[in-house]
């Protein structure tokens, strides 16, 4: 092993097709036009000394170390800012250059502490390296006089010296070590796009300043880590490196938070994780990261993590720690007893979008082969199931059409019901970069999110539509496109069914779908709708990115179809820069859907009613597979309340906190006789569990995750499971205990079975992933290198299908009792139910859920910022603190669902998508009023949770 070293070429790659040949130190090198001399040299294997250059940001030319001499040109130009030219003859090492570099370095070191041996960056410091490279042997200037290094000069206070800023929980800023190369400032601007850093002052007084000479934590900094990554010295250092020391080996793995699927180098010292460093070859993130993936991994060693299996007969009993064997035998016996007593279909399971493809595959296999039914579902039910349905119906594939690189070619981006700056931060950074280069943005969102307006980006159109009116507004965009003749007739005639288009066009052209009619109930100025439609249709490459604000509605599937219609009508499908892209919430929600986690589908989205498909698995598994779909999550809970569903295996999901209408979920779980929770922590669902099987983190197992762009990324084991077994091993042992003949020795064997049985994965294997880095499915003989963009030469289903999208308002309506609409979402530093991020220092940014309310609505109710308020709906009530802001419109309130104390889902109702049962999280009629403190429900709940989490202490042996 050893540390994976990535080459720093100094400046970004040029995208030009034209090649230029030059000579560097006598070697001939051919590179793309526009490449810097520095990069060209590096490609020839010659590293020119440098400090302020790194290939994550544009050349800056400030350090004066990378100077070169060029035949026929005067002076010593900097190689980072000088582009190559044909026939150029470059010398990187001459007597003159050596003198200049040594002189420059001498000046740097004269204002830098000489504490290398005790410095956190010792061994990983570019300043140290470059001092060695240029042969610095002496600093003639001494350390007297003006400096930034010492707190005191001759006993007097040194006003140029600045104390360390330790305010960020994950990294330290030590100004005394700063060489003001401004790499951090440029990384924050160019890579992350937050512009939280600047150089304040000038000349010798220049300093890096977060915000307006603030602490990092008080500035606009979002703690993405790009500055730490860029810093060539110890000035910005991970606290973990300061505490532990430099790592000695690393492995490339994939982040287990959102659906972007960033790749990281997990840098280790022994079996201790030192830091996560974004991997430049990660094709989703291209070397960038966010606060969660980069820093929030502390949950994996948190004291709350449960490492031993536990069982109890009743949920009112305390937990009893037992051996794996006892726990699994108990579970197997209970499941068999329940099936004997209540029938084959009385048990089921839920796969996890947080676990690997292989683990998910095994859970659905256990249910289909071992439980002999199709009662398997997954958390995608409550997020992107409408995407699967809508895109499957219209295009023929249940997934996004593009890779993330596509955003670099887009001209107009429409973001609908998504806030990537909070939920998909690395994608947001890539999008912002494109917007700063001139692409236009349209945002459909009830809130004025960070995407609508933040430093250097501003949406051309923000349609602040009322929650629940998506279908009406998206259809009225189509109305404008059709009635104003902005559609792409050639594309439609070639690739779609023309008759279906005409039928659809006559529908959207109806006056009731016009912006003027729709605008009123949707609360959007009709001119904004018209402007947005014209821009999307005629602004060049138009792409649509959408999130749960689209799917989590009673008409979620209809909106997805309406979006697909828009893309087809304008010809924005099948090439870079366009497409329809769901921003998927979880690291492997795409994968869990691909792996046959739905009750009606076998792996690869093949319906269970298909004889040929069932035949493949029946032959392989030696059992008969039900040709009728099984129960969905809400159906399981309904059946449990009715008494016909009694046992559940839940892997890595907290349905009690994440699913709507908490009281109903609790009642369903309480009615079951054997609930098995397989998780890292005693989550909220575990309060109702009889068996707890400890889970393993993504750091502790091999496998694959499939991200939102269908990319299959490797997850690599960097430490042994603290609980003893990886999750796939636990499922396998449970299957074996239930009498199934499973003998997987490694997850790669599970992937082989997936590839063998699923055409879209046919060529995927661990060896192939090792070779390719990652591939995007479909990956088979037709597309051996995978498929970055789908529907290139025509739609997967044949002809693209236009479907009418009739707007039916949700039954969830405001009235005198519940006059406000609640919508929910995420925040940057927390992730979903927060089981992981709440157990990291990320709580410094978001320690509680707050209710965002417009000043007008707050004033009517006599509420002040920070007041405790009671939030009531038809389903239930809870209390939380108010945050008064005009980011939400009057009549709309908003909160996050990261904290179990709040239980925002006590409020949400059981309304759901007509096609897929995806819950309507995004619209709930509520009332808000002043409150003194927690509601009765919150008090009872906390009491129950506390009781339920007791673990019996064993009597100490005498």
């Amino acid at each position, binding site marked *: 092993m050893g540390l994976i070293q990535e080459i720093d070429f100094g400046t970004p790659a040029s995208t030009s097709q034209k090649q230029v040949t030059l000579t560097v130190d006598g070697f001939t090198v051919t590179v793309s036009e526009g490449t810097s001399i520095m990069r060209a040299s590096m490609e020839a294997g010659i590293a020119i000394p440098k400090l302020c250059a790194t290939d994550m940001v544009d050349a800056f030319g400030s350090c004066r170390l990378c100077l070169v001499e060029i035949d026929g040109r005067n002076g010593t130009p900097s190689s980072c800012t000088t582009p190559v030219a044909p026939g150029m003859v470059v010398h990187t090492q001459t007597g003159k250059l050596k003198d200049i570099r040594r002189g420059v370095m001498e000046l740097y070191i004269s204002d830098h502490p000489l504490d290398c041996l005790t410095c956190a960056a010792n061994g990983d410091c570019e300043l140290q390296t470059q001092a060695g490279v240029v042969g610095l042997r002496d600093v003639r200037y001494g350390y007297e006089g003006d400096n930034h290094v010492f707190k005191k000069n001759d006993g007097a206070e040194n006003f140029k010296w600045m104390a360390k800023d330790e305010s960020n929980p994950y990294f330290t800023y030590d100004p005394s070590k700063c060489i003001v190369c401004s790499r951090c400032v440029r990384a924050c601007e160019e890579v992350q796009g937050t512009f*939280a*850093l600047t150089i*304040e*002052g*000038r000349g010798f007084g220049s300093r890096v300043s977060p*915000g*307006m000479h603030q602490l990092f934590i008080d500035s606009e900094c979002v703690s993405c880590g790009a500055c730490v990554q860029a810093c060539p010295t110890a000035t910005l250092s991970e606290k973990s490196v300061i505490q532990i020391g430099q790592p000695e080996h690393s492995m490339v793995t994939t982040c287990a938070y959102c659906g972007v699927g960033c790749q990281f180098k997990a840098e280790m010292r022994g079996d201790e994780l030192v830091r996560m460093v974004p991997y430049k070859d990660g094709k989703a993130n291209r070397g960038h990261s966010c606060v969660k993936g980069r820093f929030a991994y502390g949950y994996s060693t948190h004291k709350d993590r449960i490492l031993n299996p536990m069982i109890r007969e009743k949920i009112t009993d305390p937990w009893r720690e037992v051996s794996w064997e006892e726990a699994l035998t108990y579970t197997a016996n209970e499941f068999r007893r329940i099936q004997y007593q209540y029938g084959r279909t009385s048990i089921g399971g839920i796969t996890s979008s947080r676990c690997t493809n292989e683990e998910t595959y095994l859970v659905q296999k256990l249910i289909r082969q071992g439980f002999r039914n199709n009662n398997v579902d997954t958390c995608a039910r409550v997020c992107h199931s409408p995407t699967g349905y809508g895109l499957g119906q219209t295009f023929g594939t249940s997934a996004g059409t593009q890779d993330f690189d596509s955003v670099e070619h887009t001209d107009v981006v429409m973001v609908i019901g998504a806030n990537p700056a909070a939920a998909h931060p690395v994608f947001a950074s890539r999008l912002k970069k494109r917007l700063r280069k001139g692409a236009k943005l349209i945002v459909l969102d009830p809130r004025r999110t960070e995407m609508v307006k933040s*430093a250097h980006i501003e949406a051309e159109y923000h349609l602040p539509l009322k929650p629940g009116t998506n279908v009406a507004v998206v259809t009225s965009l189509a109305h404008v496109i059709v009635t104003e003749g902005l559609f792409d007739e050639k594309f439609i005639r070639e690739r779609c069914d023309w008759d279906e288009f005409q039928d659809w066009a006559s529908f959207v052209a109806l006056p009731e779908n016009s912006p003027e009619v729709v605008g009123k109930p949707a609360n959007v100025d009709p001119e904004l709708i018209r402007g947005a439609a014209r821009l999307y249709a005629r602004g060049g490459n138009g792409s649509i990115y959408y999130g749960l604000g689209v799917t989590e509605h009673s008409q979620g599937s209809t909106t997805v179809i309406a979006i697909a219609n828009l893309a087809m009508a304008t010809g924005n499908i099948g090439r870079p820069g366009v497409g329809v892209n769901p921003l998927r919430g979880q690291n492997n929600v795409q994968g869990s859907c691909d792996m046959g986690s739905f009750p009606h589908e076998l792996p690869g989205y093949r319906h269970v009613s298909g004889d040929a498909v069932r035949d493949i698995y029946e032959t392989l598994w030696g059992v008969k597979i039900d040709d009728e779909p099984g129960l969905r999550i809400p159906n399981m809970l309904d059946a449990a309340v009715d008494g016909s569903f009694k046992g559940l295996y839940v892997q890595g999901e907290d349905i009690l906190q994440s699913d709507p209408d908490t009281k109903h979920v609790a009642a369903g779980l309480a009615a079951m006789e054997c609930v098995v929770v397989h998780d890292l922590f005693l989550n909220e669902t575990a309060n109702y569990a009889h068996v707890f099987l400890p889970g393993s983190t993504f750091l502790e197992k091999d496998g694959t995750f499939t991200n939102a762009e269908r990319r299959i990324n490797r997850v690599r084991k960097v430490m042994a499971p603290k609980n003893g077994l990886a999750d796939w091993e636990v499922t396998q042992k449970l299957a074996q205990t239930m009498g199934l003949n499973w003998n997987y020795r490694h997850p790669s064997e599970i992937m082989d079975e997936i590839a063998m049985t699923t055409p879209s994965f046919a060529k995927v294997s661990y060896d192939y992933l090792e070779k390719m880095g990652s591939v995007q499915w479909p990956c088979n003989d037709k597309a051996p290198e995978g498929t970055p963009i789908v529907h290139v030469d025509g739609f997967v289903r044949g002809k693209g299908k236009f479907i009418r999208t009739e707007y039916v308002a949700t039954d969830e309506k405001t009235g005198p009792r519940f006059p406000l609409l609640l919508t929910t979402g995420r925040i940057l530093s927390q992730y979903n139910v927060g089981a992981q991020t709440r157990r990291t220092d990320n709580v410094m940014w978001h320690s509680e859920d707050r209710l965002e309310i417009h000043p007008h609505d707050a004033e009517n109710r006599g509420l002040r910022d920070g007041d405790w308020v009671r939030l009531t709906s038809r389903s239930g009530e809870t209390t939380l603190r108010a945050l008064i802001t005009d980011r939400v419109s009057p009549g709309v309130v908003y909160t996050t669902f990261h904290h179990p104390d709040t239980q925002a889902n006590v409020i949400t109702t059981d309304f759901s998508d007509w096609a897929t049962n995806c819950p309507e999280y995004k619209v709930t009629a509520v009332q808000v009023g002043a409150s003194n403190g927690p509601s009765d429900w919150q008090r009872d709940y906390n009491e129950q949770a506390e009781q339920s989490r007791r673990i019996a202490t064993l009597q100490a042996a005498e």
Partner: protein
Amino acid sequence: MTMQPASTEIASRTAAIIRELKGLEGPLLPILHEIQVEFGHVPQASLPAIAEALNISNAEVHGVVTFYHDYRSHPAGKHVLKVCQAEACQSMGSDAVAAKLKQLLGIGFHETTRDGLVTLEPVYCLGLCACAPSAMLDGEVIGRLDDEKIEEIVAEARS
């Protein structure tokens, strides 16, 4: 002590200046100039409002303000005396001029006399090298400084 305007007043006057100048090409420096004219300094409280209006970050505004020595973070005295410390003036004895001014006024560079009348600042070239050493009092340049002229200047500034 100089009276500072109340924060609401800063906000409303800042907003008016931004409204007036926002349409210019490269509006940041003109806005900062106008704010300095309005308040005698650039109040910290104005910066986020400027950032918001120009859709740039607080950090960027801070970077620009601190780059230019002429933008003050605090109000200056009634008179501002700038004494050149650049190369030509140095060679003609500007060090001694500065020392004398400091002594007569009882303050150092970047300080204001306790009666609030004079602020003393170094400046790096007034373009008056031919008449070095030189200084500038409230925008009016004075060349060929000697002891007599220095005392005159101080007397005038003190009045």
